[in-house]
C-alpha cells in the first residue's frame, strides 16, 4: 500500500513539489511555535508555590497639604499610624473578608510581582544568589499561602514569628544548594555582602516558588521586613484574603462603593483595590508575555490555514482528475472508506516525506544555537525543557501529530466528496 502510494506521489511530483515545499517551510515554523507552547505549558504545570485566588491588595493615598480637606493635626506620625491601623481594621471587618493585614509589599514581596530584590545568601563557604521577600507578619502566609516543605501547610510558616530570633525561611532549592542532603533548619546563614550583610537563623524550609506562572521555580528567601513607619508606608498595602469563591467583580464594585467614604480617615483615602489575579494578568501583559503568546497564536493560525487551503486545493484537483481511477477502484470492490483512507494516507505520507528535511534543517539551527529559548538560557536540567535534544525529539513528534491531523482532515474533505459519486457515473468519463 505504502509503496503504491509512494509511486503515486512520485508520478505527480510536479504538483506535489509545491505542496511539499510548503509543508517543509510550515513544519519548521510550526515546530518553533509548538516548542514555545510546550515550554509554556510545561512551566505552567509546575506549582507556583503560593495561592493567589481570592486575594486582593488595597492601596491607600495621603492627601497633599494643598488640599482643602487636609488636616494638619492628623499628619504627625503617631496619628498616621493610628489611622493606618483603623484603616486596616475597617477592611478586616468588611463582609466576605477572611484575613486582612497591613503588609510590606515593596520590591517584589507580593507573588507575581514585577519588582525584584536580589541578593546573595551564604552558609559556610557556599553561596548562591536569591530573591528576597520582606515579610512583616505571619498574615503574609495566611493570605498568600506559601507552604512549608515539612508538612505542605501554610499554617506552619504563618505560626512562626520571624522577628523573634532574626529568623528567615528559605525555599527547598536554596536548602539543597547550601546544605546538600542535610536539613537547613536551625542553621545560621548570612544574607548580603560586606558591610550590608546580616546573619539570620533558618526557621523553616518552604516549597519551591515561582516568580511568574510561565517561569521555572527560582530561589527565594523570606526575611523579616523593616517595621512600618511614616517613612516606608508607601511600600505597604492592605492585603486581604476573602472567603473562598467570592466573585471578583461584584466584590470590588461593592467594596469601592461602601468603603470609599468610611476609609477617609485623617488624611488617608482609599486609592484602589485590585485582585491578585488581575495584577498577575497585568504584569504578564506589561512584560510582553501575553503579546508573545498572542503573536505566536496568530502566526500559527495563519500557517495552519495556509496548509489546510493548500492541501484541500491540491487534492481537490487531483481527485477530480482521477475520477475514472476512483470509478475503476469502486467497480473492483473498493469501499468508500478505503478510498478516503487512501487519499488521507497519501497526504500524510507527503507530510512525512517533507518533515524529514525539516528536522534536518531544524537540527542544524538548534546545533548552531540560533534559537534563544532553546539551548541558551537553560537553568536546570532536572526539567525536560532543560534537556535540549529530548525536548527537540518530543516537540517534533507533537508537531508531526498536530500537522498530520490538519493535513489528513484537509485531504479527507475532497476525498469524502469524491467517494460519494456513483461508480457508473465515474466510469462513464473513461
Amino acid at each position, binding site marked *: 500500500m505504502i509503496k503504491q502510494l509512494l509511486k503515486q506521489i512520485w508520478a505527480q511530483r*510536479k*504538483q506535489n*513539489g*509545491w*505542496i511539499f*515545499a*510548503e509543508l517543509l*517551510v*510550515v513544519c519548521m*515554523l510550526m515546530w518553533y511555535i509548538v516548542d514555545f507552547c510546550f515550554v509554556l505549558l510545561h512551566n505552567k504545570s509546575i506549582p507556583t508555590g503560593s495561592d493567589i485566588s481570592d486575594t486582593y491588595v488595597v492601596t491607600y*493615598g495621603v*492627601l*497633599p497639604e*494643598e*488640599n*482643602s*480637606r487636609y488636616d494638619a493635626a492628623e499628619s504627625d506620625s503617631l496619628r498616621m499610624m493610628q489611622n493606618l491601623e483603623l484603616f486596616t481594621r475597617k477592611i478586616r471587618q468588611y463582609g466576605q473578608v477572611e484575613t486582612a493585614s497591613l503588609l510590606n509589599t515593596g520590591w517584589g514581596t507580593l507573588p507575581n510581582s514585577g519588582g525584584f530584590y536580589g541578593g546573595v545568601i551564604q552558609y559556610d563557604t557556599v553561596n548562591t544568589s536569591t530573591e528576597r521577600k520582606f515579610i512583616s507578619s505571619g498574615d503574609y502566609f495566611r493570605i498568600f499561602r506559601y507552604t512549608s516543605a515539612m508538612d505542605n501547610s501554610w499554617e506552619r510558616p504563618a505560626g512562626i514569628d520571624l522577628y523573634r530570633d532574626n529568623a528567615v525561611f528559605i525555599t527547598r532549592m536554596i536548602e539543597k544548594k547550601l546544605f546538600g542532603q542535610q536539613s537547613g533548619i536551625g542553621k545560621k546563614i548570612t544574607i548580603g555582602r560586606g558591610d550590608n550583610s546580616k546573619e539570620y537563623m533558618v526557621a523553616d524550609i518552604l516549597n519551591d516558588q515561582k516568580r511568574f506562572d510561565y517561569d521555572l521555580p527560582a530561589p527565594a528567601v523570606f526575611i523579616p521586613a523593616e517595621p512600618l513607619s511614616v517613612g516606608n508606608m508607601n511600600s505597604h498595602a492592605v492585603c486581604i484574603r476573602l472567603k473562598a469563591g467570592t466573585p471578583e467583580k461584584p466584590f470590588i464594585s461593592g467594596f469601592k462603593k461602601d468603603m*470609599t*467614604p468610611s476609609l477617609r480617615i485623617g488624611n488617608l483615602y482609599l486609592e*484602589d483595590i485590585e485582585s491578585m489575579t488581575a495584577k498577575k494578568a*497585568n504584569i504578564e*501583559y*506589561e*512584560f*510582553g508575555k*501575553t*503579546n508573545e503568546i*498572542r*503573536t505566536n497564536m496568530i502566526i500559527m493560525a*495563519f*500557517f495552519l*490555514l*495556509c496548509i489546510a*487551503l*493548500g492541501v*484541500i*486545493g*491540491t487534492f*481537490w*484537483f*487531483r481527485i*477530480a*482528475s482521477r*475520477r*475514472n481511477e476512483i470509478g475503476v477502484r469502486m467497480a473492483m470492490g473498493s469501499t468508500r472508506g478505503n478510498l478516503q483512507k487512501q487519499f488521507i494516507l497519501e497526504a500524510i505520507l507527503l507530510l512525512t516525506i517533507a518533515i524529514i528535511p525539516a528536522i534536518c534543517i531544524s537540527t542544524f539551527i538548534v546545533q548552531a544555537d540560533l534559537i534563544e529559548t532553546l539551548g541558551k538560557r537553560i537553568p536546570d536540567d532536572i526539567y525536560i525543557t532543560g534537556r535540549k535534544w529530548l525536548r527537540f525529539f518530543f516537540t517534533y513528534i507533537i508537531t508531526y501529530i498536530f500537522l498530520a491531523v490538519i493535513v489528513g482532515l484537509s485531504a479527507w474533505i475532497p476525498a469524502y466528496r469524491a467517494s460519494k459519486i456513483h461508480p457508473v457515473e465515474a466510469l462513464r*468519463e473513461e
Partner: protein
Amino acid sequence: MLKQYFKQAWHLIKQNKLFSGIYIAGTALGISMVMVMAIINHVKTANIYPETNRDRTMYVKSIIVTPKDTALQWMSSGGFSYKSSILFFMSLKTPELVSLAMDPVSKFVSLPNDNYLNKVQVRYVDNHYWNVFHFHFLSGKPFTEADFRSGIPAAVISESLAKKLYGTIDIVGKYIECGFKEFRIAGVVKDVSYVLSGTYAQVWIPYTTNKNYNEEDNELDGMIGSMRNIYLLAHSADDFDMIRTEVNENIRRYNAQSTEWNIDLAGQPDTKKVEVNRFWSNVGPDMHKITLHNVLLVLLFLLVPAINLSGLNSTRMEQRMSEMGVRKAFGASRKKLFNQIFTENLLLTFGGGLTGLLLSYLFISVSRNWILDLGKQIADILPEGATVDFSLSMLFNLKIFVAVLLVCFVMNLLSALIPVYRSLRKNITDSLHIRYT
C-alpha cells in the same frame, strides 16, 4: 485587447468557482497579514493627530551614567533630571523648539471638594509641548509661558473629561481637583485616541506645579530624574544630522569636563521609527535585527500562500494544456497567452487583495486593544477609560492602498510566474497530446 483579456478572465473565474474561491482565500490570507503590519507601522510612525510633526521631531528618552573609574563595573540609567535636560538640550541652536515632559501618571480627578473620583491619565508638560503637538482646542487655549514659569496650577483637559465633570466644554476659568490639588481650567482639547499612546492623556498640567521637578539628589551629579520625554522639533528632517552632532558635542563637552562621570545616550536622539522600538534605558534597539525580523515576517506571510497558489496554478495549467495547445496551433504567440493568463491571475489577486484588506480591518477592529502592543518588549496596560479607536483616516489612506496594490502585484508575480512560464514553454505537439480528462 485589454478588455478582451478581462472578459475572458472573468468568465473563467466564474466557471471555476472552487479554484477562484481557494485562490482568493489564499491570497487574502497573505495580504491581510501584511496589511495589518503596514497599518500598524503607519499608525505608529506617520503624522497623525495630534502628533502631526512626527516626521520632523527627534526623541530622547533616557540617559546612561557610568563612573569614569573603569574598575567600577556598573552603570545607572533612567530619565533625565531637569538639570541634565537643560544642560544638554536647552542650548541647542538647530531645533525650532525643545519640549520636556514627564511620563504620564494616573491620578484622581474630580470637581473641587467632590467625593466622586475619576481615575485619569495626567501628563506633566511644558508650554512648548503645545507647539510640538497640534492639539485641537475646542475652547480656551494652552497655559501660557508665564503660567508655566511661575508654576501656576492651570490645566488643559480633554473633551470627554470636561463633559463628564461639567456636562459642557465651556468651562474655561472653572476649577478641577487633580491629585487632590486645585487647577484652573485653561483649555479643552479634542480627545486623543489611545492609538497615539505617546500623547494620550485626559489632563495636561505644567510640570512646574510638581514641587520637586527640579530637585535632584546629589548622586551621579544629579543627571538622572523623571524627564522621560524630550522632544526636539526640527525645522525639517534635513536638520536631524545637525541636531545629532550638536547633542553629541554637548555630551562630549560634559564628559571632557567631568572628573567622575561619563554620559552616554545609546544612539539618541531618535527618529520616530527608532523611538517606537526603544524600550530600555540602558541599551538602544538593534534596528538591523528588527528590520530583518520584519522583512522575514513579510516574506513568510507572502511566500507561504504564494507557494500554495503556485501549486494550484500549476495543477490548473496542466488541465488547460490542451486549450493552450489548440490556441498555439492557431497562431497565438506565447507572449499573448502569457499576458492572458497573467491578467486572469491579476484579477484574482486583486479580488484577494480587496478581501485581504477587509480582513485586516476586521482583524484590527477585533484586536484593537492589544494589536499595537504586539512585539513590544514592555507594554503599557490600557488606562482606565481609554479607548483605542482607529479613525477612518488611519485606515483609509493613499499610502495603505498603494501598499495593497504593491503587495498584490508581488504576490501575483510570485505565484503565477513560474508555473505559467513553465507550462507555456512546452511544445505544441506535447500540449496537444496531453488529454487531461
